[in-house]
């Protein structure tokens, strides 16, 4: 039975479903029996206090950790184990809490590297850097330049990313993820450590990515204001368990959520 591909999933249908996932490291339980879904075209936020298992959840989704229990359905295909590069091939892109760029490479090369999966010219032409290899290089450069323009990082394209300020690094990282033209984009605290202005910029990019490219986004964020403004639906984790799921307004009024954030005497 061949599952439908991403393109065949209509907007609003489930693109990713996490079903009863549990993950533990040794005796430490990071995630306990969590289920939620992401619908195509939406911005889905995962929130929760520190140590709630949010990053672990993303790591499970893109194959970096393998859950002990439960399964994940992506674009109609169910899987329990897969390697990170298989997730990438399947159309999942990702940014990281602590920027995970290729520090020795320029911003341009970082984003170009994001297109590795889409480039297919063979080794022979690569040796000559001619013919199909060159055509491909130029074609993808054009796409990458579109992303660079969209993220307004043209001025730093040939600077090694290791020396860039943090805010710009975050943008380059987003660019690298966009270069993969993903069906699902996972953003791990895209606004951590940013000032207000940078946060506003980043929010705008995220909304634009969602609107113009139609990319489905799942993001983790601490800034509640940002989360409530950006996302269509929110799932709340606490101590590895799901405690609420719904629209920002519903979640905001949820008693369990308020308790988790403000603390409550049990």
């Amino acid at each position: 039975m061949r599952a439908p591909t991403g393109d065949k999933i209509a907007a609003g249908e489930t693109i990713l479903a996490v079903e009863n996932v549990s993950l533990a490291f040794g005796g430490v339980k990071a995630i306990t029996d969590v289920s939620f879904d992401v619908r195509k075209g939406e911005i889905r936020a995962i929130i929760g206090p520190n140590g709630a298992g949010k990053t672990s959840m993303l790591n499970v989704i893109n194959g970096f950790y393998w859950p002990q229990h439960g399964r994940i359905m992506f674009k109609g295909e169910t899987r329990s184990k897969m390697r990170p590069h298989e997730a990438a091939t399947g159309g999942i892109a990702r940014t990281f809490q602590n920027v995970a760029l290729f520090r020795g490479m320029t911003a341009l090369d970082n984003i170009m590297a994001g297109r590795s999966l889409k480039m297919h010219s063979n080794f022979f032409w690569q040796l000559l850097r001619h013919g199909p290899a060159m055509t491909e290089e130029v074609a993808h450069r054009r796409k990458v330049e579109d992303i660079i323009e969209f993220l307004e990082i043209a001025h730093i394209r040939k600077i090694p990313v290791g020396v860039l300020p943090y805010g710009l690094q975050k943008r380059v990282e987003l660019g690298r993820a966009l270069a993969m033209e993903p069906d699902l984009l996972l953003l791990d605290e895209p606004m951590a450590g940013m000032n207000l202005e940078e946060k506003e910029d980043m929010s705008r990019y995220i909304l634009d990515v969602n609107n113009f490219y139609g990319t489905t986004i799942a993001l983790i964020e601490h800034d509640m204001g940002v989360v409530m403004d950006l996302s269509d639906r929110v799932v709340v984790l606490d101590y590895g368990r799901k405690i609420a799921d719904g629209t920002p307004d519903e979640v905001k009024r949820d008693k369990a959520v308020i308790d988790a954030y403000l603390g409550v005497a049990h």
Partner: protein
Amino acid sequence: MDLLYKIFIDPFMQMGQAPDLLVQTLWEGLVSGVLYALIALGFVLIFKASGVFNFAQGIMVVFAALTLVGLYALLRRWGVAPGDLAAYLALLLTIGVMFVLAVAVERLVLRPLVNQPDIILFMATFGLTYLLIGLGQLVFGGESKVMIAEDLHLPSGSIEVKMLGGFVNFQKIDIAAAVIASVMVAGLAVFFQSTRIGRALRAVADSHRAALSVGISLEQIWIVVWFAAGIVALATGIMWGARSEVSFALEIIALKALPVLILGGFTSIPGAIVGGLIIGIGEKLGEFYWGPLLGSGIESWLAYVIALLFLLYRPQGLFGERIIERI
């Protein structure tokens, strides 16, 4: 079939037929294993305390032995007599030289490279290796020398033990080496576990920056640990020199400490010992019983291949902690 017989049956038949030879081979392996372990111990000391993979440890062994012999010759030429006085004087002076070396390494190599990636420090110790080879040869000459075992009153001769229907030969110097190695290992283990400076050493190994911020002096720690590694190197050099000769050809043998480290893990003193024994015994047995099948000399690579196969099974070494990757 014949080949399989030669690989899987014949060597064990030989072992059974001549158990005295087997014991002799095991003993030889044990002794060279002890010496590998001693070199590996120097690596572990430095790695534990500074996170530096000190490629130069093997050369420090040769350098220390060469300095000892060279200083002894110099003292004798100046008329210091008798021989054992000169020898012990030279020993003291060599310890001094190892201290100067530790200080120099800290000042000129480690301090300017604080907080650099590990691989940069690793490569810097390559530079140190070559610097020491050149320096040692320039000062003391490149020809091989004889260790002053007699004047240091190291035991010589051997004990023949009648057992298992034959004779097994134990060199006294080998026994001494094994004893000295055990004492050193025990001493270091106590030092690391129960002294204040030992704890500071372990703190530094975890994080340079964090250690600095709680007021541990990196400079002192590094000097102490490189000095300690230098003393271990000197002891190793004396033992090794007494068994063969003192020359830079030992460098190749010193590299054998690397597979030992891989087996034992970079941070474990017991690991270094166990790894050393496995490699030492493994390669002697391999050479003696399986070597004739392949043509002799497999000793030169057997240790590395054992380590490589082992790594594939357990990438963090025998006693190393499991590495959990986070992102």
